[in-house]
């Protein structure tokens, strides 16, 4: 397979999870798309060689995470449009009242996750939503696996406090 076809495949397979990941980190889907495109463009130019499909995935998420972090370090917190938190939403019910409740919950979760410190947010999103193992997250974020475990714990503990009203409802079901 030539470089162009291999690259086509890479984009087709990974672009959606990467945009989803970047949108969860950054809130703004337009910026997330730009960042994913930039990451792919840099990869196209660098022509890296991969030993396995797992390493491709880790490499791509690392590239996108680095660009997201650069973006976040240059963006004031006030610039983040929180009202767009529902751009990624739960599968919706067709019944209006259930749909409304699901939407409120999705927004509450999105707001809670997005107020986590960046390092914890990245770990939580990669682990919970993208299904990476701790050792893979350690490679993406370039930190020890022990740090991943403690960040995940801190993130879930913070979410537990922020989402307490919803947890009570979950327990009473």
């Amino acid at each position, binding site marked *: 397979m030539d470089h162009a076809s291999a690259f*086509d495949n890479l*984009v*087709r397979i990974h*672009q*959606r*999870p990467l*945009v*989803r990941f970047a*949108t*969860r980190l950054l809130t703004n*889907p337009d910026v997330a*798309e730009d960042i*994913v*495109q930039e990451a*792919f*463009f840099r990869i*196209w130019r660098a022509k890296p060689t991969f030993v396995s499909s797992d390493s491709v995935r880790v490499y791509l998420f690392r590239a996108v995470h680095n660009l997201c972090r650069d973006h976040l370090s240059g963006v004031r917190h006030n610039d983040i449009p929180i009202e767009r938190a529902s*751009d*990624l*939403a*739960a*599968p*919706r019910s067709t019944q209006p009242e259930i749909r409304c409740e*699901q939407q409120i*919950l*999705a927004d509450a*979760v*999105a707001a809670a*996750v997005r107020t986590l410190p960046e390092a914890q947010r990245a770990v*939580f999103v990669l*682990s*919970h*939503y993208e299904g990476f*193992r*701790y050792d893979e997250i350690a490679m993406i974020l370039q930190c020890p696996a022990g740090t991943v*475990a*403690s960040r*995940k*714990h801190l993130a*879930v503990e913070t*979410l*537990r406090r922020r*989402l307490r009203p*919803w*947890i009570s409802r*979950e*327990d009473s079901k």
Partner: protein
Amino acid sequence: MTCNAVQERLNAFLDQELPRDQARVIDAHVAGCAACAALMEEYAAVRSIASAWEAEAAPEIDALQAIWTEVQALREEVASLRQELAVLRAERPSPLLRPYAARTVLTRVV
């Protein structure tokens, strides 16, 4: 293992990231400790709730098209730079004439 130590590991336990011996210790502790068991249930509930924010679908983007457009633009830029370079090279005096050019400049300076 103390309750604190267990509680710090509960999320790794739920993620099945603990070594088997540690997981067994946590399992046994939680079976006999109401406080840690309650906390583990809450952590499990957080995970379940967090899934409400599952992505319905990432926005449909055509990254490929955008990248190919950018690649094309870069190729055109490179081609145009190569052309400019060729023109500059053509205008530059031959290396054989360079010592004469340098001498002329020196004569002018002196």
